[in-house]
């Protein structure tokens, strides 16, 4: 039996994706309120190394709607044609084995695809998450073929886990490992495959239904707490728009097309600008002081805060990161890293704001 990786055009993923596009998702720009959530997701899209977004919130706040609307919003990305892992032809260091071989021979052909936003459904089994031997092919042709799983599909995109606190432990461990290493290593059923898997892990959950393990918490770059808008007129807006969307999704999406497009351009520009944004030493010192005051464990918090502020600066079109950017991203980059003080009722957000006030108010 020869070992190879199946061409993308035939995969189950593509079939599944085709069906997915048939359903028109609610447009991102039509979402009322939720500014913080939108900002966090946009920053994560601008700088994928930010490492994941965790969303906590009440029921019926539109968490899932917002995330599922991302795919249609984000600018398309270049991928190598026929690559099952969405390899980026511009970054030879991160190519999968197949593309490396191809690249050595001829220049990789590229095509544009939408950024994958992959749902990890509850009840998914391990073999579908990491990928496994393609049985049908093995049976009919007698060849060992690797059928890429959800992790491969999510490479360079988003992996969304709704109800992350209900996910089985062994799957959580697996995801953590891959998210940390950026590489999926499959050793099963006589297969030995490794492929890049860098994705933004987006988890949503309801803290009342069980808390997350601290390891998993720390793995997320940003955390956002979403609430339903309490303003009546905003709520009426939500219901009206939802009503309009349900009546005719296509027409509704058309109506918001331009706004989505404008946002898309802005994100695209920010992505291009990101590496040019300057981070002054002074701002770095301020960010570190803030982290030290709050007592966040490890350096991950500082690094995330800096990157998030830089992504925001790029999004806003600034040349360099200012204290204001740091302030804006502090709550969502540091909130979930604070050591719990069980008797302090204040939410982590309030504590971060308090620290900012104390440090930088003069």
């Amino acid at each position, binding site marked *: 039996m020869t070992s190879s990786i199946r061409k993308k055009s035939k995969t*189950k*993923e593509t*079939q*599944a994706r085709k*069906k*997915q596009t048939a*359903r028109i998702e609610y447009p991102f720009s039509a979402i009322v309120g939720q500014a913080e959530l939108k900002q966090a997701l946009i920053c994560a899209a601008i700088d994928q190394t930010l490492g994941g977004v965790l969303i906590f919130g*009440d*029921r*019926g*706040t*539109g968490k899932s709607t917002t995330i599922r609307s991302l795919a249609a919003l984000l600018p398309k990305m270049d991928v190598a044609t026929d690559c099952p892992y969405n390899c980026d032809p511009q970054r030879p260091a991160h190519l999968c084995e197949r593309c490396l071989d191809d690249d050595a021979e001829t220049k990789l052909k590229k095509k544009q695809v939408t950024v994958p936003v992959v749902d*990890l*459904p*509850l*009840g*998914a*089994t*391990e*073999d*579908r*998450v990491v990928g496994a*031997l*393609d*049985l*049908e092919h*093995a*049976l*009919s042709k*007698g060849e060992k073929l690797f*059928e890429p*799983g*959800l992790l491969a599909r999510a490479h360079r995109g988003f992996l969304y886990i*709704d*109800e992350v*606190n*209900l996910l089985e432990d062994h799957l959580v461990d697996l995801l953590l490992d891959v998210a940390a290493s950026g590489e999926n290593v499959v050793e*099963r*059923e006589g297969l030995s495959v490794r492929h890049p898997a860098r994705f933004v892990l987006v988890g949503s959950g*309801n803290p*009342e*239904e*069980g*808390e997350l393990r601290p390891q998993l918490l720390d793995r997320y770059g940003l955390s956002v707490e979403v*609430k*339903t808008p*309490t*303003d*009546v*007129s905003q*709520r*009426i807006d*939500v*219901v*009206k728009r*939802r*009503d309009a969307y349900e009546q005719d999704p296509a027409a509704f999406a058309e109506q918001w097309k331009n706004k989505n497009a404008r946002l898309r351009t802005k994100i695209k520009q920010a992505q291009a600008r990101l590496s040019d944004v300057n981070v002054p030493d002074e701002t770095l010192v301020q960010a570190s002081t803030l982290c030290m005051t709050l007592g966040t464990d490890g350096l991950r918090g500082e690094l995330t805060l800096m990157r998030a502020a830089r992504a925001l600066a790029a999004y806003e079109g600034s040349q360099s990161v200012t204290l204001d950017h740091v302030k804006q991203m502090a709550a969502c980059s540091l909130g979930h890293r604070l050591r*719990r003080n*069980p*008797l302090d009722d204040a939410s982590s957000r309030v504590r971060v704001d308090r620290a900012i006030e104390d440090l930088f108010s003069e």
Partner: protein
Amino acid sequence: MKLNPSEMTSWEDAALAATLFAIDPTGIKGINLRAQPGPVRDEWMRRCRDYFSKSFCWKRVPLNISDCRLLGGLDLPATLTAGKPVAEKGILAEADGGIIILSMAERLPIGTAATIANCLDCGEVVLERDGLANKTPTQFSVIALDEGIHEDESTSSKLQERFAFHVELENVSYQESTHWSFSKHAVNKARKCLPAVSITNDMLELLCAAAMGFGITSLRAPLLARNVARALAALEGNQTVSKDNALLACRLVYAHRALYLPAEIEEEAEAQQPEQTPEQNESEQDQQQQNNEQQQFDPQSLEELLIEATQAVLSKQLLEKLQSTASKNNQKSQSGRSSNLKYSDVRGRPVGVRKGEPGNGARLNVLETLRAAAPWQRIRNNVSTTNSDSRRIDIQREDFRIARFKQRTVTTTIFVVDASGSSALNRLAEAKGAVELLLAECYQRRDQVALIAFRGKQAEVLLPPTRSLVRAKRSLAGLPGGGATPLASGIDAALLLAQQIKQQGETPTIILLTDGRTNINREGEADRSTAETDALLAAKEVRMENVSSLLIDTSPRKQPFNQQVAEQMGAQYLAMPHANSQNLSEAVLAHTSSKQSMALAS
């Protein structure tokens, strides 16, 4: 046919809910049918079924359904015959265009509930299992048969949140249930009308404002109410939703979700209910804030409509519910307990399988192992030529699936606090302080705490087992002092709670803080001698249940009676006349951790 909301009985409500559900099952999504099995429920189900054609798809989902049957997976016999993977549709995909019935929905595992809720939202089943990946569009509605008796025993809030209706048939007599106002013909007519029914922006605004007024934050509620209002209009044969339709929709959708009443009504209610708990006050303040916002939004008309909506929703039961259980708001949010479970390969309740080898106590799950091996049979038979009998199933090591179990290891500490007048007020403050410190400790160990206070004539569970510090602190802050000392009732209440905790497979520990000057017996009469014998009896019962306990004597001098109680309870006795919260909590910790290490050693 005129529907007058204020005069409708709960059976009429239920009948109307069934009718509307039959008109627009996909819009209404589901009904939580809270009733014990019996003729009334059967009658309701029969009437509901009658609205649909004979060929309509009804699927019953059993409580212990596996993910494989729910979502779909590998069809074992077909795979073995065909020699290649054959997919099998799950029940959710099969129910497309139909209705699924969840029996004993109050006991449905949270994972199953979440899966069903997700399918309701997305309108498709996403399958990523056993090497199969597909998405099957499916639209179904749900009838959840909620047979819970206690208030906290109910269908998962994840599901209830997505259903428009909650129907209670508890107090409906069979006599009453023979009456049914809507014919099949009316429903058929309404179904035809429904697509043409429109709703004005005014009515949408009314639905939103009313939802806010009742403290319903989720935005699914007004959207469901919109669907209900449209179905009501269709039932009346109208093209647009009238105000009455919207108001009735409010009643049907909001009544069971309401957390509090809009301000105007609250004031009236206050007159009937002078004693108010702090929480109600809080919610009222919130309410007033929101009301101000409403006024800013649309001063006149909306507010008037809101009052009407409130009156429409208002029923006697609702008032009672809102007033009697202020803590209900908290209980509602306590549905999931997933984090209390510990997975194990050895003991506990079976919950699925994982790849792995038997041994070390782990048990092989034969069926799942077969399922894993099935698709490979043709290859394996080709490769291993020695295996002449092709009908034999070739199982290899990598196919082994072992059963997984979950067990609970949570310790729940029940604090029983004497809040009587004799337990001097400064003592109470110390006890509170100690409890707070312990809470912090329990929180770190991921244990649960519960709080029972006794004073006056009886004991009261102020805080059902929880890990939420915020809740615990709030109920502690609201703990009043003063009155007589009904020690026996206090111990009884603690024991009852401990038994419940044990039933859930968790370990209860009772910490009793009292000065021992009991003067109220089990009957609630003031009589010192019977009060003491009752307390001793209650203590004995604790020992018989084998619940670990600690008695902290808070009286200024050692109380011999307290020592007796401790002896009867089999409790550790600790006199702490000069206790402050710090050393009190240290003592309790020493007690609980020694118990734990003992448990580990054995």
